[in-house]
């Protein structure tokens, strides 16, 4: 059956996110393997303005409604739950970000359809889409297939290069209508920007990043010393921020900051996708981790299996000596 493959266009504050193009590139492959057409699904008022880079898709399905002005997952899920039965796509690929987090499960629960989470790839085998999903923080992977169609897939960042899915051409547009209530039990009240911290980690050339492997708040000083010697700043992964060992302005990752420094030194960070999304574009990534199987080594350029508590002070000493000699 030549059905449709849908890709949800993820937008954040009026801009289409890179991951949308990555997922469009994946969707193109899946659609071809299933001899279906690729449709980009655009939700929101003024949806039409954003379609000019969606040429990787054969068509754009446009749902314009004032209730879709902000990405409120409950409302988005309701809109998708109305249009899916209208056209019965084979698959809906949702770029998996903080914006879309609850969409897949809410939708799957509403429609009683399969939902496959944390997919790092989808390939077609014997006419069925088979996803590779990551489990246990990247320690295990599963190949999984939905037992019925339509199926919803949450796709992790990095499935394909975004350039592959960014095609400057407007696809053929079809408007779909939805009937959304004006009152929801959930009312969006506005965004709040993060209070600026003492340093803006998105502007630093050198970042020394600490994860749970730093173990104790006192040890953060080791990273501070190295950062000072290198002329950079310290940032961290979520558990370190959650413990309040560093302020929220220093968090790197999906919920935190996206950084692209010249050097990212990852100390005791496992490399979970939510963290990797915030730092994988750094020019040079060096990881120090006691676990040789830590996923961070897959995105690092240089890696050391070892104890950061021993290596970091040794590095600081070296860097300082080098500076004195010069």
């Amino acid at each position, binding site marked *: 059956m030549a059905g449709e493959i849908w890709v949800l266009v993820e937008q954040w504050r009026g801009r289409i996110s890179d991951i949308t193009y990555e997922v469009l590139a994946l969707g193109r492959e899946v659609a071809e393997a299933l001899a279906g057409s690729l449709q980009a699904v655009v939700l929101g008022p003024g949806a039409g303005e954003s379609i000019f880079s969606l040429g990787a898709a054969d068509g754009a399905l446009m749902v314009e409604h004032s209730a879709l002005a902000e990405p409120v997952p409950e409302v988005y899920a309701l809109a998708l739950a109305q249009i899916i039965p209208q056209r019965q796509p084979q698959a809906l690929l949702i770029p998996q970000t903080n914006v879309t987090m609850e969409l897949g499960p809410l939708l799957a629960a509403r429609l009683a359809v399969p939902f496959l989470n944390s997919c790092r790839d989808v390939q077609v085998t014997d006419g069925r889409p088979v996803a590779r999903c990551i489990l246990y923080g990247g320690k295990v992977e599963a190949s999984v297939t939905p037992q019925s169609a339509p199926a919803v897939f949450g796709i992790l960042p990095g499935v394909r290069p975004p350039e592959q899915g960014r095609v400057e051409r407007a696809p053929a547009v079809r408007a779909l209508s939805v009937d959304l209530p004006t009152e929801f039990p959930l009312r969006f009240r506005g965004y709040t920007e993060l209070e600026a911290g003492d340093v803006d980690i998105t502007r630093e050339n050198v970042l020394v990043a600490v994860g749970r492997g730093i173990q104790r708040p006192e040890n953060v000083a080791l990273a501070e010393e190295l950062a000072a010697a290198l002329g950079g700043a310290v940032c961290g992964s979520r558990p370190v921020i959650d413990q309040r060992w560093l302020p929220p302005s220093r968090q790197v990752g999906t919920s935190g900051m996206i950084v692209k420094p010249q050097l990212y030194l990852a100390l005791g960070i496992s490399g979970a996708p939510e963290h990797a999304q915030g730092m994988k574009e750094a020019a040079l990534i060096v990881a120090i981790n006691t676990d040789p199987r830590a996923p961070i080594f897959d995105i690092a350029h240089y890696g050391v299996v070892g104890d950061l508590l021993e290596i970091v002070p040794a590095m600081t000493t070296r*860097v300082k000596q080098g500076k004195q000699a010069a």
Partner: protein
Amino acid sequence: MLNILVLVKLVPDTVEELEIAPDGRSLDPASVRLILSERDEHALEQGLLLKERYGGTLTVIALDVPEVDDVLFTALAKGADRAVKITGMEPGPSTWTAAGLAARTLAAGPGLLPADLILTGVQAIDDLDGQAGPILARLLELPYVGITCRVEVDPGARSAVVVREYVGGVTGTFEVSLPVVLGVQSAEKPPRYVPVAKVRAAMKSQRLESVPASGESAVMRVEILQLMKPEATGRAVMLDGAPEEVAAQLCDVLAARGLL
């Protein structure tokens, strides 16, 4: 007085080396040590903070799996009023099954519903087929907000203001009527620590309630073909040696790039 329910789940500790069972589709139970999911520590803490601020009762609910008693007694020692385990289900249920069981247990367990707030961790690391919170919310026909990092309740108005994380440090604020299901990302404070002596005391003075699992188990809807260890793509150039040697090599790498 708020009625707060916190659903918690035990997940394999990834500090252990997880091994795949001979069937190729599940984990070898011998390699698995179960611990409370990190996000659930935050859900419990958020629940305790709300109880302390507005008054009420807090009940923790978990499926009966190995180590669950320790987790539930720890929650009681931290300040939960009741601890309920759902007993008699098949091991390793899917998220759908777990959410279905939880929904039915809430209805069957004495004094659990109506609840004002049902808290879950936003996502557990063993995820595959979904997140229990949104599924549970749909089954109970309640609103759901995920990735929360702050909750304020207006008990008189039966509403709450919930802060949800978006991207780049930006948060969104929602007003929602109670009851609501929340997927907690971070509590407003780091989860509290409770000394072992207090947990032991809870084991002596308090008891766990059991509610038998009931009803049909939900369909899995997805088929696991195979579990595997990810192939190391091995992009990193690995350096080794004593700490000083490694430090020297790393400094050479940085110097070569003009970073020193």
